[in-house]
């Protein structure tokens, strides 16, 4: 059984096809792996019965030769995707009792492809956080903690998604990425994660954090598996006005091409931030060395507005969040602190229902949108966002992809980062691509001096996930990353 949980999606598909094991056996193996790792606190809601039932249906399709792309593949869902009939909390007290009667487009696509739901994994509350510590249900623990015998953060906000895949307790997980929430946890947990181009995956049914930035994407062990998941998750959705009416190419075909001749890789000099550790610099140099070996041209490029990305993000994202979260008011669903007066109902419900980080961002967002401050903050941030987009547009005239580290450090200890500003610094490399809506991916590329995973980030042109995946699979091939499972 332990053999099963160390496999990839493509390998399991092969095994199911050859009848080496059944969908039920595969699912059982991952359920056991989850149950063995209870202390890592992966799940807000574990849906074991549902998983077994779905596995049965999958197996019957496999038996009748009508199997679909993901039949027999157990996956975990970030607790930000609405799942019909299953608790969907956004890791918040305010939605602690919320059971949707509808299914998000992305998860529906996955179930339609035969995937099996193991449960809803933890994340930062409303996806606001980079450590999983803002979850009302307690943080998920990074499976790599055992390497240094300390409780490590899995990163965030999709920390549960990255951790559950890293531990071999799910073959894949859905994540969402607003400023790095797929890529940073993937890097911290030694797995692969891609945030596709904004508009590639429908946002319908995903609890909104910052609408102009939120994108769903997969977290998997390998690049191939990410490509396969993305094939299923992507697609135009008329229910989301910001969804792109574009065909989904077969992303799997972009992987596994180890000839990078004529490919131009940009190395942005502004990402060499002061105080960056030598292990990160070394990893980055090793990374572009690998690409050069495969025939790529390495070109230094400049993205001059990079240093403004983080402050810009921390104006725009909270602004949108402050409005998006106004609907959680105790009137219609979710947690309610009953009061005789409406204003008291709002105040008490929201005071009890939201955690500190969410409140902090609602306050920041309310402030930057308020009369008298709008021009100085929100409008200025939108202008800078445009400049950042222009930076990328200019650079992408000369190069096909950009290579950077995913994070400025390896996973940190739970509780070690108390200052919100230093916590926000985790997103320094991931936020620019989010602001520009570009596809970006983190691939596990090496280990830190104390043996923890480090990731490299590949940023691509709009709707050019294919070159991102192509480069990622080259790094993967050369890094020979020592996965935990």
């Amino acid at each position, binding site marked *: 059984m332990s053999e099963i949980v160390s496999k990839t999606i493509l390998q399991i598909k092969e095994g199911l096809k050859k009848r080496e094991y059944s969908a039920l056996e595969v699912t059982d193996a991952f359920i056991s792996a989850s149950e063995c790792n209870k202390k890592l606190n992966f799940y807000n809601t574990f849906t074991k019965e549902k998983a077994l039932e779905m596995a049965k249906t999958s197996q019957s399709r496999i038996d009748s030769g009508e199997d679909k792309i993901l039949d027999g593949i157990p996956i975990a869902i970030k607790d930000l995707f609405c799942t019909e009939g299953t608790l*969907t909390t956004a890791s918040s007290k305010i939605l602690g009792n919320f059971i949707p009667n*509808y299914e998000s487009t992305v998860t529906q696509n996955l179930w339609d492809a035969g995937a099996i739901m193991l449960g809803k994994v933890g994340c930062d509350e409303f996806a606001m956080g980079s450590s999983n510590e803002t979850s009302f249900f307690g943080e998920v623990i990074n499976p790599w903690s055992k390497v240094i015998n300390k409780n490590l953060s899995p990163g965030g906000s999709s920390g549960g998604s990255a951790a559950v895949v890293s531990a071999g307790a799910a073959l894949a997980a859905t994540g969402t990425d607003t400023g790095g929430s797929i890529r940073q946890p993937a890097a911290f947990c030694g797995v692969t994660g891609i945030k596709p181009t904004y508009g590639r995956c429908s946002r319908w049914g995903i609890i909104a954090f910052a609408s102009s930035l939120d994108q769903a994407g997969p977290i998997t062990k390998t690049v191939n598996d990410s490509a396969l998941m993305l094939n299923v998750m992507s697609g135009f959705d008329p*229910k989301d*006005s910001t969804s792109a009416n574009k065909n989904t190419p077969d992303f799997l075909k972009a992987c596994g091409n180890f000839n990078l001749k004529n490919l131009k890789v940009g190395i942005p000099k502004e990402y060499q931030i002061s105080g960056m550790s030598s292990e990160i610099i070394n990893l980055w140099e090793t990374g572009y060395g690998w690409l050069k070996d495969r025939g790529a041209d390495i070109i230094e490029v400049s993205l001059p507005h990079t240093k403004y990305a983080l402050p810009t993000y921390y104006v725009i994202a909270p*602004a949108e969040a402050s409005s998006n979260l106004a*609907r959680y008011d105790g009137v*219609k669903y979710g947690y309610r602190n009953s009061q005789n007066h*409406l204003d008291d109902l709002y105040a008490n419900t929201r005071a009890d229902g939201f955690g500190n980080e969410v409140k902090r961002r609602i306050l920041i967002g*309310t402030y930057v*949108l308020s009369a008298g401050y709008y021009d100085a903050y929100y409008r200025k941030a939108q202008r800078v966002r445009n400049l950042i987009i222009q930076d990328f547009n200019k650079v992408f005239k000369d190069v096909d992809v950009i290579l950077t580290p995913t994070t400025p450090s390896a996973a940190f200890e739970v509780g070690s980062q108390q200052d919100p500003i230093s916590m926000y610094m985790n997103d320094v490399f991931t936020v620019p691509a989010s602001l520009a809506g570009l596809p970006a991916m983190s691939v596990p590329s090496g280990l830190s001096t104390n043996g923890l995973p480090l990731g490299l980030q590949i940023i691509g042109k709009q709707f050019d996930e294919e070159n991102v995946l192509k480069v990622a699979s080259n790094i993967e091939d050369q890094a020979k990353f020592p996965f935990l499972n």
Partner: protein
Amino acid sequence: MEKFLIHGEKDDYEIVVGLEVHAQVNSQSKLFSGSSTNFGSKPNENVSLVDAAMPGMLPVINEFCIKQAIKSGLGLNAKINKFSVFDRKNYFYADLPQGYQISQYSDPIVGEGTVEINFPDGATKKIGIERIHLEQDAGKSLHDQHPSKSYIDLNRSGVALMEIVSKPDISSPEEAGAYIKKIRSILRYLGTCDGNMEQGSLRCDVNVSVKKDGDPLGIRCEIKNLNSVRFVMQAITTEANRQVEEIENGNEIIQETRLFDAVKSETRPMRSKENAHDYRYFPDPDLIPLVLTDEYINNIKISLPSLPDQIRKNLVDNYGVSEYDASVISEEKEISDYFFLASKGRDGKLVSNWLTTELFGSLNKNNLKIEDSPISPEQLGELVDFISDGTISGRIAKDVFAEMFETKKNPSKVIDETGLKQISSSDDLIPMIERVISNNLDKVDEYKNGKEQLFGFFVGQVMKESSGKANPKLVNQLLKEKLN
């Protein structure tokens, strides 16, 4: 027109009024969801996941509502903005499920326009339109269903509204009334709003300020949510009088939102922190800006129906209808449709007389709308034909009309059945005239001796003899021959 002035104790004051008309877009489904907009459904029957602001739900623009707004803009001679943006207006209220209203703030779909208003004496005035923007309606809070709880009905939540903002060009309650009537009339012709004020499809906010002649604009107060033309006019008068009184008592006018109490005939401040409200407008990131092409706008333009101003002109120029009747007939599409059917191939002036006096009178008396008229336009036309060709007299026609209204019968049938046909043959009339003369020989003598006013008496007697059916013209002629 004479300038409207409020006469204070010390001075005369002009009033300056701007109107915001909230017109519900005539559409099957809501602005951003597929739910029905049907009026009168059971509470919360027309509520989708989007309308209830369930987590993860997203708005998708209803293109039909966009077309309706463009149509309305074109009908009000306004500029259609090819680039417009939907913004979020953030505030908390129990019947506002999202915690924000999707509206248009800095880039509305329709820009400046003008509308011409008409007065009973035939005078006109141009009122400027500042803008029209699209927005969502909120739900409804019901506070009278339970002793301690409030109930929320979200049927209206998300229904599309057009907010039509006028320039402060209105300077009397009458002008405000005429303006609303005109806007309502145009929207109804366009089919973009049903204009039903009782059902709340058309509501008004009015901004009122007063000033002395030559002074700069005064501080304005906004009176919200007026749902009839009469209330709008009363509210303006009441509020303007209040402001004059305040000023003359040495008090300053505070810019605020007020409510009009029709029963007490007063306005009073809304109990709210209105001034503290900061709506934190920003572009809705769930929606992309609306970009329209010239072709798209032109296709709507060429499909526009005739509008009241054109129709009024047509009635005066080509149908001989009086200026006043023309403005009455053109105000409602249903009435002008009726008129054009009834007057086909006939004397327009005569038809308009019968329409605006007899038919309107009977409809009003019976509280009926023209759509429910028991007399069809064709029937009214036939009645006019019988008058024109002398089959019945105008007086008899009134009886025929009354019978038609009562029984819905064709005029020919009524005339046949009741024998109301006019007696227009000398052979039939001469014996009656002779009878009247022989019965009143004394009066004949008096007449012949110069008491000429007795002629009317003889006409009356003949009419009586004929039960009113005698052709009065012929009676006159024959009587004159006999008596002289």
